[in-house]
C-alpha cells in the first residue's frame, strides 16, 4: 500500500470523521466519541505505517496485522478499511443494520475483509495480538503486530495477564497502543476507577513505553509510530500511550464522555460536518 503524505493523511482524517458521524447518525446508534478521538491513529496506521494488502487474507503472512480490542469504536475502523480498499465505501451505509457485515462491534462471522477477530467484550484484544505476534515469530515472519486498547479497558484483569506474559516471552514484534483519553462511559476514568500511573505500571511489567502526547496531531502520531518501530527487535514489547481527546474535531463533542455512545441529531450532524470541510467525497 502506497504511503500518503501528511497533507493527504489530514484530508483523509477529515473524511473519516465525516464517515463516522454519518454512519452513526444514519442508524442513530454507535460510538462516535472515541472513534473521532482515534482517527489520526487509524489513518496514520493504515495509510502510512502498516505494510498491508487490501486483498485480504485471514492469515496475513508477511503483512503487518492490526487488532482492535475496544471494539465499540468500529466506525473509525470500518471507515478506514473501506477507504483503504478492503470493501466498497457504499457498504458503510449498512453499519449496524440487519444483514450487514458491519456489525455494531467487529465480527468475523459475517466475513468483513480486514477483521481477523471479534471484539466488544473488553480486555481480550492484547492477548490475541500477542498470540499472533508469537505465531509470526515461529514462522520467521517479520511483520509487525499492532493492537489498540482503550484506557478504561485497562480496568480488565486480562490486560494485566497479557502485560505480564509478553515481556516474559520477549514478544518484541508488537506495538500496543492505549487510547489515553481519560474518559469512559460513566465519566472520567479518574472518577470511575483511577488508573494511577499507567506508564509506570507498564514499565514495571517490562514494556518499553513511549508517550505520544499529541494524539490528535498527525505529524506527532506518525512520528510516535515511527519511533515505536525503532524499539522493536530488542527483546521487549512496545507500548504507545496515545494521548487523545474524545470527540476530537467536533467542538460540541470534544473532551467529554457524553458522546461515548450516542448519535447526533440531524442538526448536530449538519453542524459537525460543517466543521469538517475537507473531503475525498462522501459515500
Amino acid at each position, binding site marked *: 500500500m502506497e504511503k500518503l503524505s501528511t497533507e493527504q493523511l489530514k484530508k483523509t482524517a477529515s473524511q473519516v470523521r465525516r464517515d463516522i458521524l454519518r454512519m452513526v447518525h444514519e442508524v442513530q446508534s454507535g460510538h462516535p466519541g472515541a472513534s473521532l478521538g482515534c482517527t489520526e491513529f487509524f489513518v496514520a496506521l493504515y495509510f502510512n505505517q502498516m505494510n498491508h494488502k487490501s486483498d485480504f487474507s*485471514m492469515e496475513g*503472512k508477511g503483512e503487518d496485522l492490526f487488532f482492535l480490542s475496544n471494539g465499540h469504536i468500529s466506525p473509525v475502523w470500518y471507515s478506514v478499511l473501506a477507504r483503504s480498499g478492503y470493501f466498497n465505501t457504499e457498504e458503510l451505509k449498512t453499519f449496524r443494520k440487519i444483514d450487514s457485515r458491519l456489525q455494531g462491534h467487529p465480527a468475523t462471522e459475517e466475513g468483513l475483509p480486514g477483521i481477523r477477530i471479534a471484539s466488544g467484550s473488553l480486555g481480550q484484544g492484547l*492477548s490475541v495480538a500477542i*498470540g499472533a505476534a508469537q505465531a*509470526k515469530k515461529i514462522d520467521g515472519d517479520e511483520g509487525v503486530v499492532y493492537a489498540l486498547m482503550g484506557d478504561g479497558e485497562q480496568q480488565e484483569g486480562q490486560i494485566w495477564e497479557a502485560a505480564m506474559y509478553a515481556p516474559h516471552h520477549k514478544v518484541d514484534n508488537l506495538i500496543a497502543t492505549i487510547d489515553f483519553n481519560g474518559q469512559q462511559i460513566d465519566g472520567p476514568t479518574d472518577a470511575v476507577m483511577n488508573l494511577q500511573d499507567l506508564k509506570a505500571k507498564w514499565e514495571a511489567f517490562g514494556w518499553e513505553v513511549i508517550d505520544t502526547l499529541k494524539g490528535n496531531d498527525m505529524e506527532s502520531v506518525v512520528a510516535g509510530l515511527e519511533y515505536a518501530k525503532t524499539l522493536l527487535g530488542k527483546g521487549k514489547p512496545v507500548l504507545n500511550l496515545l494521548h487523545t481527546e474524545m470527540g476530537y474535531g467536533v467542538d460540541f463533542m470534544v473532551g467529554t464522555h457524553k458522546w461515548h455512545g450516542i448519535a447526533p441529531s440531524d442538526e448536530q450532524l449538519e453542524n459537525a460536518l460543517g466543521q469538517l470541510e475537507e473531503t475525498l467525497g462522501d459515500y
Partner: protein
Amino acid sequence: MEKTLETKFTYTEKQDTRSGFGDGLLEAGRKNPNVVGLCADLIGSLKMGAFQKEFPERFFQVGIAEANMMGLAAGMSINGKIPFTGTFANFSTGRVYDQIRQSIAYSEKNVKICASHAGLTLGEDGATHQILEDLGMMRMLPNMTVINPCDYNQTKAATMAIAEYEGPVYLRFGRPKWPIFTPTDQKFEIGKAWKMIEGTDVTIFATGHLVWEAVVAEAKLREEGISAEVINIHTIKPLDTEAILESVAKTGACVTAEEHQYNGGLGDSVAQTLARNNPSPQEFIGVDDSFGESGTPTDLLEKYGLNADNIVKAAKKAIARK
C-alpha cells in the same frame, strides 16, 4: 462361588484419559508442524511434558492466566497455527467462558480447548476443581464441537483427529486410571456415534468414563435376560441424531449416562432429539443439580449414582415405562 461377569468388552490395563491426550498431542505435533501447545501451569497434570520437551519452540507456558491463554491461542490460530490449550476443565470453561465465546467460538478460530480433571472423578480435591457443567456450557456455544472420549485409546485417537479438523473444539478428559477397552488403532470419527453392543430392549447412551459402566451394566442386564444396546456418544456436539433415533426406534426406551449434570449435557441432548422426532421413555444417569464433593472416584460415583448398578436400575425403569 460368585460367577465372573462376562462383559462384551474386556480390559487388561487401566490408564488415565489425560495420558491419552498427552500421547495424542505428541503424535499430532510430529505429524503437523503447525500444532502448538499452551498450558496454564499444569504441564504435569495435563501430560503435556513430552510435547514440550520435543517441541520447545512450539510450546508456551502461560502461567496461571487462563483468560490470556484463550486469547493467545485465538491469536496464534490466525496465521495457521493449531493451538491446543491445557488446563483443568473448570478453568478451561467457566472461568474463561466469555473469552472462548468472543475470541474463539464467535470468531470461528481453530483452537482446541483441552480440559482435564473433568467430572466428579477428580475426587479428593472437591467441587472447586471438579466440573459438572462444562459440556452444557460448551455445547451451547455456536460453532463449538464438543468431545468426551471414554478411555485412553479413544482420547488419544480423538486428540489426533481434532488436529486435522478445522474449527473450535472442546475436548474433555479425566484424571483417574480407567479401563482401556477400545482398540489401540481405532479411527476416531467426529460426530459419529459408535454402537458398541447390539440389543433390543433398551438403549444405553453413554459418554466419557461412564461408557465402561454401561458395558458392565449391559452384562448385568443380560444375566437377567434383558437385551441392552450400548452406544458410545463420544461427540456430544454435533450429536449423531440418526444413530440415536435409529436405536430408540428399535428398542423403544433409553438411558443416558454421563459424568455431568443432567442439565445441559448428553441427557438433555438426547431428550431434545427424541422430543422432536420420537418421544420415548428416557432415564437419566448424571448428577441432579448438585456440586460434587471430596472423596475417592469410586465412592463419588456411587454416592451420586453414576455407576453400572444405577444404569441397570434406570434401564429397567425405562423399559417399564414403554
